[in-house]
């Protein structure tokens, strides 16, 4: 039991950190540009495809990861300059419609280019096996993801909380007009944030690639989770995104692993078998609705 709980807790942490990579970009685009980007999940999917394709071509996970992330950043740049720039000033409805259209295009384009079959992405060979710590075994690759996630989280924190650029970004999220009045080039700042968000998407997609299948539609489910994260955390807040990611990652993972067991102890077997998976999959939505009920602006509202 301890082994199971510890393992699932680490899985939850790992999942949460990957969610954070996605949520960080989403919450900034959302908070600063006031733009709902439903296609954020598509950037994650396309990024994962880039990484997988590049890794296959170069026969190296690391080269693939680097090339894929760079490719996604370029794609983000193109999208920002050609489309998103025009959407920032529009209402939420137009943004929802336009980015919904992007999802349709991205899914189909990926299917045209790489076919309907999932792409295989192998982890680096040196990390393929489990790591043994005393009695406890844990896949080395998952530990690497956790390490990556923590490193990026710390880097982002330093960048946003301590650097000058971060100060502008936070200022932009809190009060755009004022930031512009201070002579900051908000346009260029927006582009940079968007591109950075796209790169983080590809990083998450590439890192998760070996664990999940790289396939069409992988972006949508994760997009919704990322939205849940930033709504819980408070739109525009990096700290909120981190806390929200960890909450959602752990609650979802532990819920799926432990709820069915718990219910079996409390309920008749067939009732538990029906209720367990259902409860586990809606747990985070219940959590989100509950948090919004008491804090309609999320846990860490960026705008006072």
């Amino acid at each position: 039991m301890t082994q199971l709980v510890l393992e699932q807790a680490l899985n939850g942490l790992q999942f949460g950190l990957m969610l954070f990579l996605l949520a960080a970009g989403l919450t900034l685009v959302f908070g600063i540009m006031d733009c709902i980007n439903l296609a954020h999940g598509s950037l994650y999917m396309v990024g994962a495809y880039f990484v997988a394709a590049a890794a296959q071509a170069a026969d190296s996970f690391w080269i693939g990861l680097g090339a894929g992330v760079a490719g996604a950043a370029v794609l983000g740049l193109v999208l920002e300059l050609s489309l998103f720039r025009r959407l920032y000033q529009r209402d939420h409805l137009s943004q929802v419609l336009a980015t919904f259209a992007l999802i349709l295009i991205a899914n189909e384009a990926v299917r045209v280019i790489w076919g309907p079959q999932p792409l295989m992405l192998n982890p680096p060979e040196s990390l393929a096996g489990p790591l043994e710590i005393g009695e406890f075994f844990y896949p080395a690759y998952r530990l690497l993801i956790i390490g990556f996630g923590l490193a990026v989280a710390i880097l982002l924190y330093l960048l946003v909380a301590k650097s000058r650029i971060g100060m502008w970004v936070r200022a932009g999220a809190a009060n755009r007009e004022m930031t512009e009045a201070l002579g900051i080039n908000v346009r260029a700042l927006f582009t940079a944030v968007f591109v950075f968000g796209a790169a983080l998407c590809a990083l998450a997609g590439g890192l998760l690639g070996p664990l999940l299948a790289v396939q069409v539609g992988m972006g949508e489910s994760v997009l919704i989770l990322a939205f849940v994260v930033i709504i819980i955390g408070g739109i525009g807040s990096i700290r909120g995104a981190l806390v929200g990611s960890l909450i959602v990652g752990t609650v979802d993972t532990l819920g799926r692993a432990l709820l069915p067991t718990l219910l079996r102890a409390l309920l008749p077997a067939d009732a538990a078998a029906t209720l367990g998976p259902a409860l586990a999959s809606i747990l985070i939505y219940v959590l989100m609705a509950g948090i919004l009920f008491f804090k309609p602006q999320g846990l860490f509202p960026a705008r006072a």
Partner: protein
Amino acid sequence: MAFYRPAPWQKPLSVALLIAALALPTLLTAIGQEFYVGFATRVLIFALAATSLNLVLGFGGMVSLGHAAFLGAGAYVAAICQQAGINEALLAFPAAMGVAGLFALLVGAISLRTRGVYFIMITLAFAQMAYYLFVSARAWGGDDGLPLTGKMAFAGIGLGGDTPLYYLALGCLALVMLLFGRLADARFGRTLQAIRENETRMEALGYAVFRYRLAAFALGGALAGLAGALLANLTGLASPNLLQWTQSGTLLVMVIIGGVGYLYGGVVGALILLVLEEFLVGLTPHWHIALGVLLLGVVLFAPKGVAALFGKRHG
């Protein structure tokens, strides 16, 4: 956004459209294209569903990304009724509307505490909850959905074949459009639109804003439930896919293409999107790309929707 007011040509046009729609199955049979009666039924049903969202979105100003949950709930209620031995649409359809409406009332009561994007996301979250509940409900088929054993009956008359269901869907849509047109111009619609325009002002005039919004949200949910019950009869299946958020997105797209806040916005949007889909599918298996590009075009170049291009509204 301007307020709805019936244009003088609206009544004659509606009557003409209704007559044309009544004649359609006979026409299609005459030219040997009966196959399209089923397609036309689908258009009618989605016109109804999109109109129910237009009430919420266009007239109530509430951007809901969870409307498909009510559509799906209606479909399941119809299927469950049949499973329980109730094959009469006159019983099952009101039940579908009631359950979907109550569900919407609950969702609305919680969601309407929030504003803006938070509202969009919390409605989405509720729809996701419903989706996962149905996916894991083994008694109702889980992933595979709950099939109907055959089409239901309406007032004892079987709905088998394509044409009877077509007329039932047409009747439902016509009634709903009539109700919608009346309420949009009555006190309730006036109130709802004024709240959409300026919530605080309405409160300062003594209106209990929350109640009107909630009523519209629940009514929209009930009408979506009706569309769901019809849809289950058309496809012979209540599937969890009906509750997926992409389905909510599609309904939104229909309303936006047709024209948010225009009485016929939902009908026009459903017609355009489904005909376009039918047309593009024939051209290329990758029609999603073409559709996506078209949608981007609408957002960038016709932001008020197609109805706005030829529909003039007061103000």
